[in-house]
């Protein structure tokens, strides 16, 4: 079962997540940063619940009221030109 892909965009497997958790004994957030699970093109829209579930299992962190793996803008893939427009407006 461990060879299943959890995060498709970044091609992170269940095994990658488990190994990282074991090696670094770290938080869900750190696992995410190390493996890039949930940080790909889709912004986690596809895998967020799956990544959260796996993280809960491997780290034992229970889901709290805060969104576990914080959402950052932009929440959709956008071109850098569009993002620059965002800066100009400020």
């Amino acid at each position, binding site marked *: 079962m461990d060879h299943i892909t*959890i995060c498709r965009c970044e091609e992170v497997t269940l095994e990658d997540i488990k190994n990282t958790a074991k090696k670094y004994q770290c938080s869900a957030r750190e696992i995410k940063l190390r493996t890039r699970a949930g940080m790909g093109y889709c912004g986690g829209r596809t895998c967020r619940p799956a990544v959260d579930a796996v993280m809960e299992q491997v780290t034992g962190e229970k889901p709290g009221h805060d969104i576990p793996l914080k959402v950052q803008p932009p929440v959709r893939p956008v071109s850098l030109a569009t993002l620059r427009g965002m800066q100009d407006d400020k």
Partner: protein
Amino acid sequence: MYDVIIVGAGPAGLSAAITCREWDLHVLVIDEFVKPGGRLLGQLHEEPNGEWWNGIEETKQLMDKAESLNTDIRCGISAHHLEKVKDHHFIVHTNKGNFEAKNLLIATGAAETAAPVPGWTLPGVMSIGAAQVMTNVHRVRVGEKGIVIGVNVLSAAIARELQLAGVNLHSMMLPAMNSVTKEHAHPKKVMDGLSRIAHLAPSAFLRFGSRFTKSDFVRKLATQFYPKSGVKMWGMPIHLRKAVTEINGKDRVESVTVFDITADGKLIKGTERRIEVDFVCIAGGLYPLAELAAVIGLPFQYLEELGGHVPVHNKKMETPIDGVYVAGNITGIESAKVARAQGTVAGLSIAKKHVDGKADLDYRLLKAIEQVKTIRNEATIQFHPHISEGREKIEQAFRRIVHS
């Protein structure tokens, strides 16, 4: 500057837009899909009274109304960030530039939860919702013969839609238990959910299913003695004691590997076999799509009754950020009728702030809130059993946050 920008043109966003236009507010609705209607577009069910709920028709009615009120609805625009500049001044960042408004309504609906099964990245594997959109919105045949992994309200309803469209389904069964599939892979838990859709299946399932709704003990027994051949719904077997362990194929789906499972979801050795299929639909349930609520800084509550993390709000669809409103499935997973009714509430709440001296609006708002409850209680499609408790908890969270 707009009085209100509505993100999402599903039933919630559209009905809110209609209400805001009825009170003559300056409204912009944006949606990232090519057409308005949201998840309504794919829906087609027969209600217990024999009437059909046809999402395309329902969308048309909403759109006719919105158009008669000259509502500005723009599709193909994706919001990627929401920003508060100061009180009642917000910026919506999109792929087509920025838009400014005094109020925001976030009505972005729900997304599907992926239930990864080994092989789920092969071409030919799709979420059940994708199969619904391909079939009912794009009118594309998803394949010749398929199987549905995951048995729940949504997958049963969509499996029926696929059948009606002439798509051949072998059966529905559970995913094998792994770190992610959890309750979707547990026959007893799935049975609990199924007893709530018994009414969707007029014949066999009704007789079989309604007996289970009574007591927990009976449901336990039912999973214990679940028939080997499955229970047929509209001629298609639903298996609670079989699970898919793997989707196989070289460049595309060719078959699935299936095991019999025990009443608590464990694989039974020696029961392995392969079923040839050319497409697979995975159904892992729905969760509120609340990314935009997160980036603007709304507080959240994790409430399983509502389908996951939902932004804190009250019955009037107000949030702790003055001028930001939410409606529809972002507030909890429910049927389209509830979403539509919540949109009206949000529209009235927004109008109330901008239309002076119309005491009538308070009364209308109260009525609209009542209407949401009535529709909820009469809903034929219910995604979560304790929805009303979830609604009560979120209301309390709102009070705690606003009064602290």
